[in-house]
Structure formats: structure tokens, C-alpha cells
């Protein structure tokens, strides 16, 4: 799992544990992101002159957590890689990278999606919300509160995806029973097996949302 953190550019001096803390507390992560984003964007190598112009890195604006970010990236860069490697937002986790685990779940225009199976270039006019953008300043999102209250995690790697997925699930409004919560959260795998506490957390968040 460590190598996932090392893939990121511009993560200097920030420990994995510190980032995870920032992801859960939200406020610190949101403050950190734009700072790293600027440095990371500047570090993107210029495209080779021989590369076909249409496929080389192109400048575009991504709207993440209420802020506009200018990035220069190739069309093949997935949203999860843009967030982590180009904007320095490490809250969104890269798990399987094939849409099978849900660790990379983010919200696009309020709808939960796997950020590993979509290209950043597809979302230039849309509002992307990551785990860093859920809290309102120092006040945690009700789903974050509920995950802490019900201990809805163990190692925490799947947690940002679980929380973003739960936010999307509640917004969708199709879920009422415990079985429906389990089915509705089926796209998020937890290797530690914190599922029963995750169901409790989602149930609690549904009540307060």
C-alpha cells in the first residue's frame, strides 16, 4: 500500500499517517490541497515536441471542492491520478484501479463514481467533491461523524471511498433498511471487514442527514 503514496508527486514531508488524519478530519486536508496542487501542476513535464498535439498534455480547469485548479495533463490521466499526482490531494485512495474496490470513490455533481474508471478530461465542467471537501470548515460532515462514532474502519484505507459512497447513497434516497444499505454499499470493499460498523454508521448518518 505504501507505494501508492510514493507514486504521488509533490507529497514532500507529508507522512501517510498525517494525510490519512487530514482525510478524516477534512479541514486540514482542504487547506493542504491547493498548496500541493500548485507545486504539483508546475512539476508536470512538458510534452515531447514529437508527440501528436491532440494527445499531448493539455491545460484544463478542474473544479474540486469548490476551488478551480489549472492542470496540464494528458487525456489518458484518470481522475484519481489527477487528484493525487497533479493536485496533491491524497485523500482519494487508489485501490484496485479497475472499478472493483471503490476506494477511489468521489462525487461528481453530487453523484458517486469510481474516479479510477473515468478520465479527468471528461470532467472539466463538473463539480468534483473528494473526502477533503466534505467538512464545513472544522465541522465534520455527518457521515464522517457517524464513521467515527461507530468505528466504521480499521486500517482506514477504504474509508474515504466508503464515506463518499455513503454520502452519495444517502443523497440518492433509495435506501431504507439494513439490507438495502449493504446492497447500496456493495461497491466499496473493506479488507479489514468493518462492514457491520459501516452499516451502523450509514444508518446513523441517514437519520441525521
Amino acid at each position: 500500500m505504501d507505494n501508492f503514496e510514493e507514486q504521488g508527486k509533490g507529497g514532500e514531508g507529508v507522512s501517510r499517517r498525517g494525510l490519512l488524519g487530514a482525510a478524516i478530519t477534512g479541514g486540514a486536508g482542504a487547506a493542504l490541497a491547493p498548496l500541493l496542487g500548485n507545486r504539483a501542476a508546475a512539476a508536470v513535464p512538458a510534452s515531447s515536441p514529437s508527440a501528436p498535439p491532440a494527445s499531448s498534455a493539455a491545460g484544463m480547469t478542474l473544479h474540486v471542492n469548490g476551488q478551480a485548479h489549472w492542470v496540464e495533463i494528458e487525456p489518458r490521466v484518470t481522475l484519481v491520478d489527477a487528484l493525487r499526482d497533479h493536485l496533491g490531494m491524497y485523500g482519494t485512495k487508489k485501490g484496485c484501479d479497475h472499478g472493483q474496490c471503490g476506494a477511489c470513490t468521489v462525487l461528481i455533481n453530487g453523484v458517486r463514481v469510481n474516479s479510477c474508471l473515468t478520465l479527468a478530461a471528461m470532467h472539466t465542467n463538473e463539480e468534483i467533491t473528494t473526502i477533503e471537501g466534505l467538512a464545513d470548515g472544522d465541522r465534520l460532515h455527518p457521515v464522517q461523524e457517524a464513521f467515527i462514532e461507530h468505528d466504521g474502519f480499521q486500517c482506514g484505507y477504504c474509508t474515504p471511498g466508503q464515506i463518499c459512497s455513503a454520502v452519495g447513497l444517502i443523497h440518492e434516497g433509495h435506501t431504507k433498511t439494513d439490507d438495502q444499505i449493504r446492497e447500496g454499499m456493495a461497491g466499496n470493499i473493506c479488507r479489514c471487514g468493518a462492514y457491520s460498523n459501516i452499516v451502523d454508521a450509514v444508518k446513523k448518518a441517514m437519520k441525521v442527514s
Partner: protein
Amino acid sequence: MNDFSYSRPTTTTEAIQTLLSHPDALYLAGGTNVIDHLKLGVVTPSQLVDIRHLGLDKISTDAQSVTIGAGATNSAAAYHHEIQTHFPALAEAILAGASPQLRNVATTGGNLLQKTRCTYFRDIHSACNKRQPGSGCAALEGFNRSHAILGTSDACIATHPSDMAVALTALEAVIHIQDQSVVRTVPIEAFYVSYGEDPAKENVLKPGDLIVAIEIPRTAWAGHSRYVKARDRSSYEFALASAAVAVDVDAGKIRNCRIALGGVATKPWRAHAAEAALVGQSATPVAFRAAAEAELASAKAQKENGFKIELCKRVMVKALQEAAEMRRA
């Protein structure tokens, strides 16, 4: 992932022209299948043509049918009131597939074109006639527990993975396909082709063809339809065997029925033999079992997937029982 360019046309004509002038370009809709395959190296397009901005995401209804735009997401279709009420097997099938995150972006048009989950198709170092025609089929002598028992050939035994397309086959959907000059309609059963000599050819689409909509006719049986799916996990898994059935029962007799099978065949499998065995019969478990036996008589097991023959029969019987119960309710 290979390098490629990205374009975002705003009209269907422009999108089709781009595909025709760049033969190795691919359409990009939800991307959940294409981007997965890009990472595996299964596809290496020069360009992705984003077709999410063509206004193809509408779902419209009239007295004769429901028409789902090819760009409508799986979630939009599954939770559409008209589809849930009048075509329940379709809503059930969509919700039985993938995860909420995937269904939120995957489109109905893309779902029709989902590629097989055969391990050897997804591994570019393995022999696979579907991915690389003429290279052989590693599944014939390899791990084939999840593979097909109907419609196979010596060249390929891969299953079609879609749940949605199975329900659409039972509901006799019609696919609207646009080319340079016209929109033509193709019944779903004719849309998917049998493998024959070339497993790489899965449907009747020609270069540049764009699926624009899926139309589902209203019938006396569509409202009494069910989708039953058996899989290794209780959720978020492809079918080992599934059945979409729609029945019109009157005074205990089956007046009409439509049955399609998934997870067991090389394409969404219309069960004509089972349908013929049922029409005019009493809606009883004995008749359902006899129909399942009739359909699976031609099944061919591989080394590891013989269990699918009995599993598929039981799934069919369960689906028929549930649909017949709906009629009585």
C-alpha cells in the same frame, strides 16, 4: 495505457464522422468498460470520442413503448418510474449488475457492448480468438468454470456478461442505430450475432455506427416479468446463471411468455425452445421444469462448468414461478 487523443463532439453526425475518419478511434460514454480495457492493454485506440454531450440521455414514453436514450445511465433507467412499474425485469436486471458507482456512469448503450469477463480475453499474453483472431482459445483447456454452455464453438466459450441485455432480450427490445445517413432499427436478438468462425464479431455494428436508443415495446407480459440471478457472491458479481422471464397467464394457463438467459451463453440467450414448451400449458413447477430441460438439452459443458446446466434450469424455474405469481397477485 497507450497515448491517445480526446475529442468531445456535440452532434451525432460529428461523432460518427470522427469515427469514420479515424478507424482506430473508439466511442467513450461512461467509460467503465473502455478505461478498464485501456489499462489492461486490451484496446489501444488512437482517439477517444466522448459521446456524453450528444443529448442522448433522455428516457421517453408513449402508448406503444418506452425509449431509453443510449446515453442514459444504468441508474437513470433502473430507477425510472415507468420502467420499474411496467418493465420490472429490466429494473431488476440493471440493479443486479455492477455497483452503484458503476451504474451511475455506465450507459445503456455501453452496457449492450460490454465485453466478456473471460480471464484470457482480459490477459493480453493469453491466446484469445476474440481479442486476437486466430490466436486460439486458452479457456478451452484452461480455467473455464465461469464460461458458457450454450452457443459455444471450438473458437470461443466466453460468456456475454450483461444482465441488462438479458432482460432486454426477454422484453424484445429494438436497438436504434445511426450511421452517416439514417437511423435504422434492429431487434436485439438480431443485434447479437452467433460466434461462428469469428468470435471477435459480436454484433451487427459497422464502423462508425452509433447506438442512439433502445426501445422496449409494451406487451401483455412485460409488466409481469422477473430477473433472477445466481452468482458466487450475494452482490457485485457477474452471473453464473440468470434468467429474465415475462409471462402472460390467464386462468392458470400460459398464454404467452418470453425467456432469456444470462451467464451461460455467448450472447444474451433467447430461450425459444423453453417458450415453445410452455405456451398453452398450465403454469406449474412441472411445466416450468420441462421447459428448462428442453432449453438446456443442447447445453455443452466444459471441464469445470458442468454445474451450470442444473443451476441454469433451477434459475429458470424460480424466475418463471415468481413471474407467474405476479400475474396472480
